[in-house]
């Protein structure tokens, strides 16, 4: 293992320019991958927050007793799709309205035009059932009307799916690029050592003995590139979360950077490097 590591480091050093270019390219790819990954992660959090705020507003018919309201609330709870159910009586609604509109104008109407309402906040994972539930509730005997922000939710859904698909496509392309960069670099180093490897085969070296230094080389390339990216992300993290930046752009504080990045990225680099190197070497044949 140690000799494979020493051999790999020597090989990378003896091809230092191609190694440096490969490492930088891998670093840039990993950096973009991480930025996109963080973007998608934050988009997920954002859409969840929005969906938490999206509620069905159920207007109840006039003249429903308190017992019937309780019964209706219970029936909603039993559906297990709502995270929170809030009843707003027509009197409370009027009070809220008076805070928004000049009370004298409301006095002019002479009666309370508002209905008793129930706000039902849908659970994150039941978000896609919103339309179906809304249709079902519309036919309920106590329900006068239902409002839910269908256009906004639909647009949000489409936007999220589009961004995710685009993100995954770019991530896949960048992942493939990393695979190809390491593949080409290791293959090039392997070809350069053709005579050396031929001698090893003649001396009875097993395929694993021949492969080991190159797998290590691939792993080191992937690891170095991903560490470069991790360091850049770390730097950006400190700049973005510094007091100065947050005071200048307060929205930054809403941005979430999962700490898992700092160990997942190097692990991914190492793994991708070893896989690429393995593919580059192919089957070791003896002649």
């Amino acid at each position, binding site marked *: 293992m140690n*000799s494979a590591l020493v051999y790999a480091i020597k090989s990378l050093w003896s091809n230092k320019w191609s190694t440096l270019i490969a490492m930088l390219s891998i670093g840039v790819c990993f950096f973009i991958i991480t930025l996109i990954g963080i973007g998608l992660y934050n988009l997920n959090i954002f859409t969840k927050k929005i969906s938490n705020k999206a509620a069905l507003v159920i207007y109840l018919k006039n003249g429903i007793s308190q017992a019937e309201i309780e019964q209706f609330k219970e029936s909603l709870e039993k559906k297990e799709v709502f995270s929170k159910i809030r009843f707003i009586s027509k009197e409370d609604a009027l009070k809220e309205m008076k805070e928004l509109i000049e009370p004298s104008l409301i006095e002019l109407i002479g009666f309370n035009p508002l209905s008793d309402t129930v706000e039902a906040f849908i659970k994150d994972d039941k978000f896609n059932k919103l339309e179906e539930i809304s249709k079902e509730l519309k036919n309920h005997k106590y329900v006068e009307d239902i409002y839910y922000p269908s256009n906004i939710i639909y647009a949000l859904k489409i936007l999220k799916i589009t961004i995710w698909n685009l993100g995954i496509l770019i991530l896949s392309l960048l992942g493939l690029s990393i695979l190809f960069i390491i593949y080409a670099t290791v293959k090039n180093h392997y070809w350069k050592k053709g005579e*050396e490897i*031929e*001698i*090893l*085969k*003649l*001396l*009875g*070296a*097993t*395929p694993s*003995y021949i492969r080991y230094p190159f797998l290590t080389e691939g792993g080191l390339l992937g690891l170095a590139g991903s560490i470069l990216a991790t360091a850049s992300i770390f730097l950006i993290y400190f700049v973005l979360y510094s007091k100065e930046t947050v005071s200048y752009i307060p929205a930054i504080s809403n941005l979430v950077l999962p700490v898992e990045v700092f160990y997942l990225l190097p692990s991914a680099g190492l793994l991708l490097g070893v896989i690429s190197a393995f593919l580059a070497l192919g*089957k*070791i*044949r*003896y*002649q």
Partner: protein
Amino acid sequence: MITFLGVYKYYDSVPVLQSLSFKIEKGELIFITGPSGAGKTTLLKLIFGSERPDEGEIKVGDFELSRIRQSEIPHLRRIVTFVFQDFKLRQDLTVYDNVALPLLVMGQKERDIKQKVYDTLKNVNLRHKADTLVRTLSGGEQQRIAIARAVITNPRVILADEPTGNLDPDTSRDVMNLFKSVNALGCTVVIATHNPELFKNTAYRVLHLKEGKFLK
């Protein structure tokens, strides 16, 4: 140790070896001779697992070479070693590193390797050149290093293809003496050569190849 039974080898449908059947006993030193293109190198390559016979059976120790799997070849090459005419040494390494290479490949520890390498280099009179880069040495010295590398793992068979091809008569004699001393320790040695001086006035068996067949 080595058995050939009705072996044929073709290159592009042209027969290179035809109906070869013979045995080489354990501890024997044997010369395979014949003109260029007679099939000497191909015969050695077949024993080394570099080529496969198109017909017939070849057995080396416990290895059945007509059916040998790729994964078994490294193990075959730990009991059958090869001394090449062009030495096949790592020119960028020292004498010590070249001779130590087969032991490293076999996974031996550095401390065990050191003594073995120095002992083997002493046997080929190159102990004093251990730290010298191979590329700075003469052809005769490089051939002795190649022999040292071939014997260091105590193989059961050593194959040599024109081992004196590029050497002057005095150096050739030294190299041949090395093979004889290795053989005296019980190792089977197969030497392919077109130089009759090597086996003239010796009691060793000589097989004459011509156009892929043995001459009676």
